[in-house]
């Protein structure tokens, strides 16, 4: 499977979050901290990532910590796409 570059995924996620929440989110902001997004929206993000990057989030990967920031989500997507330890 093709592994998307980290920076591309991050930019796409920032754009997605902006279009859906009308707010600008930094790549390392905790999206679910107080005053942030709801758990229902978290689930929507999971479904969006699965559809957009053709990955499946299962088992132990399905936990909120993997979705707290744009960076952590992009890292998870790359791992599920089969990125090696060597990086890009």
């Amino acid at each position, binding site marked *: 499977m093709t592994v998307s570059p980290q920076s591309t995924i991050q930019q796409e996620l920032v754009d997605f979050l902006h279009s*859906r929440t009308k707010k600008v989110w930094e790549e390392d902001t905790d999206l679910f901290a107080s005053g942030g997004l709801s*758990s*229902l*929206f*978290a*689930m*929507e993000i*999971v*479904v969006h990532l699965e559809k957009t990057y053709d990955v499946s989030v299962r088992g132990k990967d*399905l*936990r*909120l910590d993997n*979705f707290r920031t744009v960076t952590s989500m992009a890292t998870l997507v790359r791992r599920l796409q089969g990125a090696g330890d060597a990086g890009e």
Partner: protein
Amino acid sequence: MQQPSEQTAREPRRHHLAVLGAGVMGASIATLAAGHGVPVTLIDVDDAKLAAAESRIAGEIRLAQLMGALPDDVVEATVTPGGRLADAAGATAVVEAVTEDADIKAKVLSEVSALVEPGTVLVSNTSSIPIDELASAACRPADVVGTHFMNPPYLIRTVEVIRGARTGERAMASIRSLLDALRRQPVVVRDAPGFVTSRVLHPMINDAARVVQEGTATVEDVDALMEGCLGHPTGPLRTADLIGIDNLVDSLRVLHERTGDPGCLPCDLLLEKARAGDTGRKSGRGFYVYQGETS
């Protein structure tokens, strides 16, 4: 071998829950049970509703996992759909989650109580109808107890349990055992219209809507004040969208009829939204718009 886990002691599979009504609450109670290893039969006369509930439950199980709300050491149980009340026959507990209408709930309880083994606890998940009123419809009023699960029940641990005047010890023991298997924390209260949570919350939401109706503040500002100044977790109007504005109107009417409190008479803005079908998160629009969000 490991020590017997806490879950082994709970033995979720010795319970078998029949849930009546595959609406928002029925489906999410099924999610809660299945996710804790308790097998469920989900019953509704409407095939389309049952089909919709199946995919809804699959999504909710994932949401519950995402939020760390399901135990790691439990194998998920299955939810079996059923089209007839008779499918509840083998259950160890029955939860009715049909429309918040006293006549409909009484009819369902009356019929199901004739189908199950005597002594099977019959749980009404009503948000405001007095339990003793519903118990009169059942063959054995002692088997009837109330629970008021908050939405979503798989994320909210505390459950209001209502002991009616005729609710028996055996029914109380059954509901405690079931809620323990579901890792919920019961708070038992006496029977009254709206019990505690609805009696306090629903007139407050009605007032929040009235404040918007009178032009004092916007929807967003009412919620921002109630959250920021008073520590309400989601804001009353966002909570209204989660409850369902149609359900809220039904509940306020029940409260008004039974308490005479004019503060419980649903305000025009709530009535308008219910009439227009803007019932909240489940319809995609209420006080807020939920564009494409999983409901």
